[in-house]
């Protein structure tokens, strides 16, 4: 063999070896794809994951807008048993629907040295991952907690002239309302369309869960229920007198909102807050980061955050119940990257990472939630931790998206005024029962149905108004 040929062969062999080495390195690289709705919290996860020590693992977001597209993207992938994503954040009430396609987190708790059930508050773990309720079987981790809250204009509430005028008109001090009855008066007081000011903003839109997360908060506080989870009766519960009282109070509050707010979603409510257009707004704590940010909101230094009011129901009992928000982190059981994902989750749920996350969103890690640093981190965390005690949720049933859509149709129609609240809730009850029957549930009809269903189902009524400071 001549020298030039030998040199060429050696060079080629070296190049081949280098190529093989590079390709084997590339093969070790792992992309962990997650599905979530786009927003601050998804951005925070991506940002934190950039510091994951194992640089061969990359966290890839597959983000969709908040709404049905988000649910449908996860559901469609599960339907084909695909692995286009490895983990996903889904709504607490979707756990029932997705549990059969998700990795049982108990298995990870058993094997992992760090990831254990006790690093999360038990109520949070249950809320975002347990199915069936009370079974001790988990299919999600509390990645992003949220709750409905009250955002109000501090400058208006603390203005001595407003305080004086309010007292003269209603005979009591102007204060953050503890009941919806009080909220109605405060909203009425501040509704001044000629000044471009309105008393109350809330969601009423037809999309996804916009109207019903708000209306349910009223419904539960007035002693209503969506259904009886033991007998699966919906008629007589969802359209019970107490439920109608609650949803009627919700519909009535639109009188004190900006015109056309019956079809608002969270974006419109946020804009109203950030433009100082409303004295009070029902809004998720999730958005308080932007509402308290002077770069985003002109009224950032003028808004205060509180726990939502409760209501005194027709039985004279006080209840404070509102919708849970946020998402659990679930793992796609068809993913082939479970070992890498488990290692990432063990790192991600460490206090160091969760403190960073908690600076912009609401963590589910107990050690961070209990630390005084977190409570004092911003103007709303302390209120958020109080709000966690009053959360309630939709049906925890696999038929959730159908039941939700049926209730959305009817509540949205009531908000738009095309149906009375009684008619809308009766129609929703009829549809919901049909859906449950189609899914094979046996509805055991009782002889009577309660006027105030909460008295029969996990009662929370108290004899007097219990204020939250």
């Amino acid at each position, binding site marked *: 063999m001549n020298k030039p040929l030998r040199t060429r062969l050696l060079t080629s062999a070296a190049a081949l070896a280098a190529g093989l080495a590079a390709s084997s390195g590339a093969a070790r690289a792992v992309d962990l794809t997650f599905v979530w709705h786009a927003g601050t919290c998804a951005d925070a996860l991506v940002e934190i994951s950039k510091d994951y020590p194992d640089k061969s693992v990359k966290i890839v977001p597959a983000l969709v807008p908040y*709404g*049905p*597209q988000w*649910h*449908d993207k996860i*559901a*469609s992938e*599960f*339907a*084909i048993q695909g692995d286009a994503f490895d983990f996903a954040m889904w709504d607490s009430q979707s756990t029932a*629907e997705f549990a*059969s*396609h998700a990795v049982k987190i108990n298995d990870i708790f058993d094997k992992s040295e760090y990831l254990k059930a006790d690093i999360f508050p038990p109520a949070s773990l249950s809320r975002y991952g347990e199915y069936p309720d009370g079974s001790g079987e988990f299919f999600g981790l509390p990645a992003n907690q949220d709750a409905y809250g009250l955002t109000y204009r501090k400058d208006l509430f603390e203005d001595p002239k407003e305080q004086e005028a309010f007292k003269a008109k209603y005979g009591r001090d102007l204060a953050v309302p503890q009941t919806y009855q009080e909220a109605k008066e405060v909203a009425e007081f501040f509704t001044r369309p000629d000044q471009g000011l309105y008393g109350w903003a809330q969601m*009423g*839109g*037809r*999309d*996804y869960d916009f109207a019903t997360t708000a209306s349910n908060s009223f419904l539960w506080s007035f002693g209503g229920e969506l259904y009886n989870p033991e007998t699966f009766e919906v008629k007589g519960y969802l359209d019970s007198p107490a439920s109608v009282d609650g949803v009627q109070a919700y519909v009535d509050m639109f009188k004190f909102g*900006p*015109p*056309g*707010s*019956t*079809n608002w979603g969270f974006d*419109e409510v946020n*804009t*109203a807050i950030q433009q100082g*257009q409303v004295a009070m707004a029902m809004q998720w704590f999730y958005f308080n980061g932007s509402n308290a940010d002077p770069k985003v909101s002109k009224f950032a230094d003028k808004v205060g955050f509180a726990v939502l009011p409760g209501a005194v129901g027709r039985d004279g009992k006080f209840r404070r119940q509102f919708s849970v928000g946020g998402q659990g982190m679930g793992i796609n059981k068809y993913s082939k990257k479970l070992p890498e994902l488990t290692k990432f989750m063990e790192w991600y749920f460490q206090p160091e990472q969760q403190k960073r996350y908690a600076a912009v969103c609401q963590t589910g890690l107990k050690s961070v939630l209990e630390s005084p640093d977190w409570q004092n981190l911003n103007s709303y965390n302390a209120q958020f931790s109080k709000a966690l005690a009053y959360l309630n949720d939709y049906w925890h049933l*696999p038929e959730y*998206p*159908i039941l939700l*859509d049926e209730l*959305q*149709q*009817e509540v*949205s*129609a009531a*908000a*738009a005024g*095309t*149906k009375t609240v009684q008619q809308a809730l009766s129609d929703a009850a009829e549809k919901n029962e049909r859906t449950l029957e189609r899914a094979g549930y046996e509805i055991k009809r009782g002889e009577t149905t309660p006027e105030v269903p909460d008295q029969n189902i996990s009662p929370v009524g108290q004899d007097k108004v219990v204020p939250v400071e």
Partner: protein
Amino acid sequence: MSTQSHTARQAELKRQSSGRLMIFGFLSPTLAILLFMVAYPIFSLVYYSFFNFSALRQTTMKPIGLRNYEFLLSDPQLWERFVFTGKFVFICVTLQMLIGIFVGYQLQKNFKGRDIVFTALMMPMMLSPVVVGFLWRYMLNSEWGIVNFLLYSVGLPKVDWLGQANAALWAAAAADTWMWTPFIILLATAAFRGIPETIYEAAEVDGASPTYKFFRITLPMAAPVLFIALILRLIDSFKQYDLFVALTGGGPGTATETVSFAVAKTAFSYFYTGEASALAVILLVIIIGLSMILVRHLQKLGERY
């Protein structure tokens, strides 16, 4: 002699059959793709429509005959959706055809800046329907949308465009018309410019007025192309889904749910796969029926002009 003729016939047959074989050989890949891409999904759709079945909730597929069809056709809500879809299609297609033909007629004339105007008019058509939906949703916002701002600035009351059923229908029709009228303009302009100038010159010699020329020459001569545009818009408006997802979410209540919206929701939110298949079959039959009637009319038009 007869042996010679027999041989010649055999050679001819051989040539013909090898030609047919070659044609089949060339066509078969395309046919195979078409069968796979069109025939198989349609067959699956019809097949699944006879089952109680959910792709997500993996219970056993239960054959239920025509019960999905019975359930759907006896559901008053489905008929409400058909009525809404019909109203929407009628308003949109009428507006788009009228505006499109009028603007197209103006654009066939040569004037300075015509190409720039033409290109600018085509822009809405290039956007995604979801983008158009969100754009109009913000423009129609009752409190800070540009539409109500303009109404208010001339002393008119603000309208809750998306919160009231009737207003929402007109809002959706306006958005769809804004987006798809350019398509009619495009085809109408092309059709009008394709008419030979000599016909107009002859009409002018005979003293025909502009109105006469438009109704007796321009429209009839452009009719086949305009009819194709009508067919395409009818079918497309009938299938409208994404615009409503972004603009109204189907609300208020179920007031703006089109039939396609119901198919998508039943299939991918409810995951009632069998029922959604039956609904899609019903929709397919209607669209095919509608198309066949229109295509027959198109053929008659083609024969006439």
